[in-house]
């Protein structure tokens, strides 16, 4: 494994090494991309021996991905896996060798009736076109034909494993419809509410989540989709892998999401206002998912771990979240309270504990009667 810096690296005082020293080294580049096992092994070990350089290495890696066009080691691994699978199928099921010299039967011009040929070609096109139309129509209908529905009531979560092994967790007050032809030629599901998807990759049968506002096409992934009809926004957060999101509006814009990023789309009410202001392009934003203080878990998927998380959210959003979580009804009587912002994580606490905790820092009172909570 050649590199200019390697010889120097082994002799020099590492503590002086900066991002540019690592990054200009070819084996370090291979370590970042993950396409050379020896380079990965060398630098992983090197990092264990030099833990004080961890943050420098981390920054160098980040800059590497900026420069190489955002191709991460995860991207490489996923793509290489596809290559390996394709090759595995090829060697398992060898394609019969075609005779290298195929006989060409020359068309004799004199024997060919031009009108016949043209009619033939036209007929072929018609058939192809008819089949195409039929398929398009069929694929639209078949999502709901013979479909299977799963619902989770407010306050309850539901886990589903589909026939292909794809795992889905539904948050409270959500509904998932699985297409009747699921896993035959494609995999389509319709989501209303919030779901966490761990999809088994299959390039031949693309997996797509349809929601009212966006469609999320998986490319081998774990992701979270939040699409409650009553929320202000539709959100898709990517944890691992890659997804392609298509907006269901006129623009049909496609957005490729990177891991640990989320797309936030304004729902209908705001859409009209935005269009009035002619800021249609700014209808959605892509930003990083919110990490918890432990640095590992992600706020957007905390609910799957039975954690109720508020991340700098106003009380009216929190109230809706709590309604779905505990299956209660929350009335905010004092309008000032709506604007209070809270950040908190609750692990298995009941609703009284949560309200008491929020009460400590917010200036409000509450009354609980059966399943109705009044905030004032």
């Amino acid at each position, binding site marked *: 494994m050649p590199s200019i810096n390697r010889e120097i690296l082994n002799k020099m005082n590492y503590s002086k090494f900066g991002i*540019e020293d690592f990054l200009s080294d070819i084996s370090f580049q291979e370590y970042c991309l993950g396409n050379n096992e020896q380079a990965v092994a060398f630098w992983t070990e090197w990092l264990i021996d030099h833990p004080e350089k961890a943050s420098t290495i981390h920054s160098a890696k980040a800059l590497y991905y900026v*420069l190489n*066009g955002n191709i991460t080691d995860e991207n490489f691994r996923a793509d290489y896996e596809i290559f390996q699978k394709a090759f595995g199928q090829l060697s398992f099921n060898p394609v019969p060798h075609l005779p290298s010299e195929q006989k060409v039967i020359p068309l004799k011009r004199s024997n060919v009736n031009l009108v016949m040929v043209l009619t033939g070609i036209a007929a072929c096109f018609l058939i*192809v076109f008819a089949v195409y139309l039929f398929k398009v129509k069929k694929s639209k209908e078949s999502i709901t034909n013979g479909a299977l529905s799963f619902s989770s009531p407010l306050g309850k979560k539901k886990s589903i494993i589909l026939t292909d092994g794809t795992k889905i967790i539904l948050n409270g007050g959500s509904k998932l419809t699985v297409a009747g032809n699921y896993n035959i030629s494609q995999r389509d599901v319709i989501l209303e509410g919030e779901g966490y998807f761990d999809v088994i990759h299959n390039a031949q049968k693309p997996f797509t989540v349809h929601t009212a506002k966006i469609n999320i096409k998986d490319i081998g992934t774990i992701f979270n989709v939040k699409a409650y009809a009553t929320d202000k926004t539709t959100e898709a957060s990517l944890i691992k892998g890659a997804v392609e999101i298509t907006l269901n509006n006129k623009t049909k814009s496609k957005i490729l999401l990177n891991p640990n990023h989320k797309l936030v789309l304004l729902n209908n009410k705001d859409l009209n206002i935005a269009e009035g202001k002619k800021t249609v392009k700014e209808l959605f934003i892509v930003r990083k998912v919110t990490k918890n203080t432990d640095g590992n878990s992600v706020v957007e998927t905390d609910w799957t771990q039975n954690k109720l998380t508020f991340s700098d959210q106003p009380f009216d959003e929190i109230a809706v979240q709590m309604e779905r979580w505990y299956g209660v009804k929350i009335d905010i009587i004092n309008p000032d309270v709506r604007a209070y912002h809270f950040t908190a994580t609750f692990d298995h606490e009941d609703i009284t504990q949560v309200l008491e*905790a929020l009460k400590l820092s917010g200036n409000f009172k509450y009354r609980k009667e059966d399943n109705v909570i009044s905030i004032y």
Partner: protein
Amino acid sequence: MEGPNLHKITWLEFKSGSEKALHNLYKQHYLGLINYGIKFSGNRQYSNDCIVEMLLGLWEKRAKLPEVENVRSYLLTCLRTIMLQHIRSDKLRGVKESHAHSLIDHQELSYEEHITKIQTDLIIKDKLTKSLNKLTERQKELLQLKFFDNLDYDEIASRCNISKRTAYNIVYDALKILKDDLKKEGNEDSYYLLSVVSLLLFAMGANIS
């Protein structure tokens, strides 16, 4: 062993039927090919499918393949041929919006525009634009050859008619400028604040229960 020679040997082994060489061919040329495909189609997944199709196609007829001097450009040409075939057959089938054209405007983007455009973090995007503006055309060219096209210093040197040492130094100086500009993180303070508030609330919650 240096890049171009390593590539040539891998190619010969590949031609003689080594499966390991086929895998190495994928690994050695992945970055250059995938970025070429993404510039062409705007879609990584699709580009990878084309690379897989191309390599497995070559594997099928490996014995008949020529001994090539520059493996990299040979593979790029093959990839381009496959992608053009797809577009042509899509057109024949009357498919107007195929994945191959979904983000076709990527083709017209320069390297710096491309890497800036795909940054989703607005702060980094902004810093990157400003920092790239400070670099000379030569520095940007070499960054692209090194990190995006994935050439090694020898190939860069011969292509740009400079010495290997000079190639290395140009890349090194450019990296130094970029790293200084991109290093200063802006949002750490707000994260810190968020975690303090969250910790406080957590502690309160714990007291009650």
